[in-house]
Each structure stands twice: as C-alpha cells, then as structure tokens.
C-alpha cells in the first residue's frame, strides 16, 4: 500500500510540483524528503501494535518473558525502527537511483542517522500509545501531529523558505527531528544542489538527542503505565 502511495507521490506530485516551484532540482529535493516522510509514517505504526497486543492478550505474554521492562521497551523501539527501515529500504533505494545519489561515505553516516531517527520515532509512538490508551484517540493525535511535524519540516521545502514565510514556522522547523533527518539524508546523497545544511554534525546531534530523549521517555512511561494492568 505504502509502495503505491510512494510511487504515485514521486511520479505525479514530485514531477508536476517540480514544474511549479523555483527551488533548483526540486524533484530530487522532494523525493529525498519523501523517503524520510515515509520512514516517519511507517515507524509510527508500532503504536498501533501496542493496542492490538493489549486487545488480543499478547501484552500479558510479553510481560511474562524473562526480560526486564526496560529491555522490553528498548527492544520494541529497536524492532519498530528496524521494521520501518526494512519496509522503507527498497523505496529509499529506488529514490536514490531516481535522484542519482553519488557519495557512499556520506550516505553511510546519513543511513546511521536515519536508523536512530526511526528508533526515536518508534519510542515516541510507544510512549504516546501507552499514555493515550485508546486507539481512536491515538489515531487522531498522530494524524494531527503528523500534519504539523511533516509540514513544519524541511521534508518538502528548504528551511530558508520556511523561515522567510513565517519566523515561527522557521523556529519550529529548526527543532523538528524530521528536518534533521531530511537534511542529513540529502547531505548523504552527495547531490550538491539539494544540500542546504552547512554543518551536518548539528543535524546528527539533533537526531541523537531526539533518539535519546524519546527512548528514555518511552522506557519511563512504559514502566509506569503498565503496572497493575495499566495498559488496558
């Protein structure tokens, strides 16, 4: 399903919108951003699994396993992130071929950052799912969050343009993990015309901080909320 969505966004929106905007090589810029957006929306899905497991009694089974709850949530975050990565991997590979990525070394660093980004998003999704406790409300909340986190990031347009449109939007985009991931991914492709960041280290630090924060939050919230059947 996501593959159909991805391809139609590339071959329809990407191609046509590139004829509408004045950003140089916008098609390549958009396809790179789309890969990160797809990774983000796939990593979110781990939250829905939490509800399904609670509904079908799998949660009790997981709690009975000989691992600490901390290990359990770290495992869930890594599993969710890795699953999203494997799922989006072929799409990312296609997008790299389409846009003509050229720098393997940079790309290895960017790939590592995307791994951390994906784990961080899974951790965030788990933390929110455990806090909200209703799959409907979670669906709505993630939809609203998605609307703002994607649009207020550099996944679709460069940061300078967002800042020029509205300084508040620019400020929000500046601290958005999707911005860090999209910028690093573009830097990783090595295509000069779509690289807008001066210092990739800052984006990398941003992603590591995001990963650390949400993994920690996920562990803390998960540990507190599941006691006494709190997941029900």
């Amino acid at each position: 399903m996501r593959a159909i969505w991805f391809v139609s966004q590339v071959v329809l929106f990407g191609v046509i919108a590139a004829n509408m905007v004045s950003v140089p090589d916008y098609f390549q810029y958009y396809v790179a951003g789309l890969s990160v957006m797809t990774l983000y929306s796939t990593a979110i899905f781990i939250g829905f699994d939490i509800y399904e497991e609670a509904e079908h009694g799998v949660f009790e089974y997981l709690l009975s396993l000989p691992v600490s709850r901390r290990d359990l949530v770290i495992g869930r975050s890594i599993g969710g992130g890795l699953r999203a990565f494997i799922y989006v991997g072929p799409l990312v590979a296609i997008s790299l071929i389409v846009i003509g990525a050229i720098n393997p070394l940079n790309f290895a660093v960017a790939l590592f950052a995307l791994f951390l980004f994906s784990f961080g998003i899974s951790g965030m999704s788990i933390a929110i799912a455990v806090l909200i406790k209703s799959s409907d409300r979670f669906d709505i909340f993630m939809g609203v969050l998605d609307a703002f986190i994607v649009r207020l990031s550099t996944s679709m347009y460069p940061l300078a343009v967002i800042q020029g449109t509205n300084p508040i939007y620019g400020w929000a985009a500046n601290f958005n993990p999707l911005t860090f991931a999209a910028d690093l991914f573009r830097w990783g492709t090595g295509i000069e015309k779509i690289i807008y960041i001066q210092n990739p280290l800052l984006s990398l630090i941003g992603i590591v901080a995001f990963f650390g924060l949400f993994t920690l939050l996920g562990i803390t919230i998960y540990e507190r909320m599941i006691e006494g059947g709190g997941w029900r």
Partner: protein
Amino acid sequence: MVEHDFRNFFRYKWWLVGLISMNLADLFVSALVYNTILKLSVRSEIGSYFNFFAPGLAVTGLFASAFMIGREVNMERRREVHHYMLSLPMARWELAIGRVLSGGLRGMMYMSPLLLTCFIFVGFPTVWQLLLILAVLFLLAVGISGLSISIAASTSSLEKFITARGAVYYVLFFCSTVFYPIQVIQSAGPALATLAEINPLSGASDMIRSILLPQFFKNFSYLSILYIAAFSAIFTSTATFAYMKLIERA
C-alpha cells in the same frame, strides 16, 4: 437512513477535528510556504498559491469525508449489520440510494467550514454563485460517496479497502488541478493534462476558482460540470447496484 448515517458520522467528531486540523495545516503552512517559492510564470497565471489552493482544500475535505461512508459499509459487511438493514421497512434500492445520499450529505457538512474559510480569505460569491457551488459540490460528494461504497462492496477486508482508497486518492488528487494549475500539469505531460481536465475534482476546484478569482480563471469550461454529473451518475448507479447485491448475497 440519512439520520442513521449522520448519527454515525458524529461518533467520529474527534476524528473530524483531527482531519480539519490536517486540512488547515495544509492551507496555513504548506500553501503559504509554496506561495513563496512559486515560479514567476506560475505566479502570473494563478496569483497567490494560498488563494489558488483554498478552493482545492474544500474539495479535499469533501473527498475525505464523503469517502468515510465506504469504511462504514465495509465494516457493516464484515460485522453482518446488513441483516438489520434488511429488516428496515423500505425497498432495497431506497436503502442503497439512502446510503449514497447520506455519504454525500456528510461530505457537504464536513466541507462547509473549509469552504467558509476559503470564502473568508479569497472572497465571497453572490447568492446564485453560492448555490451553483453548493449544487456542483453536492453532485461531486454523491459521486465520491458512490465510488466509496462501490469499492467497499467489492473489498472483503478493511485493509484492502484502505489500500484501494489510498490508490484512488493519490491518482485522483495528484492528477488533478487541486494542487497545481493545468498549465503546470501540461508542462509535465499532455496525457496527465488530459486526465486532469476530465477529473471531476479538477472541475469542482476550477469552478470555485473561476467564481472567486475570475481575473485568473476566466477560461473555465462548463463542460467540466458535465464531467462531474457523469461521474456522479455512474458511481451512484454502480454503488446502488453493488450495495443491493451485497445485502442480497449475505
């Protein structure tokens, strides 16, 4: 039937709040940002991207909410609620038409605040123009509702329905003038432009633009309304037939 479907619709009120937030984020963030990076040639054709996109947003909202009826029909199919539906004192074709119409009416209701937002920022039409806009959008909403029910009746699981919905959404929207003007689509490929021209979503968006922004959209062809009417007639009949078959088969 309409009352039943409206009650169901309001059970999703928080979902609708979420949907409206997403639509408004599209308008007040994405459209504003795209407005600053428009090519000069495109700007001279459409003016502001914000104004251009606002009518498209109303059509986007209409599509999302009118399509929700299919999700319910699909769920009813899986949970076998149609036994109750069949016990209602009405003919099957009335039941089917009622579902299609209520899907369309729900779409209109959800779309109203988005259309009002469009009027506030782009400009208000005259009473007759407003009636024309509402009539055409209702035709479109009924067609979308019919399309959604047709898909729901022919898909056995929610996952398949959602997959089909995603495919329909992306093809219909990205190959229409909801997000970009027809001149831009023509420069990407003449085949895409032909598809966009007969697309009912393009017709509805461009009709609102031709009324609210006549200085930029004076070449609107009223043939597009005919396409919308044809779309609506085809999918209302298909949905009626598919829905009747669905409840008879069960």
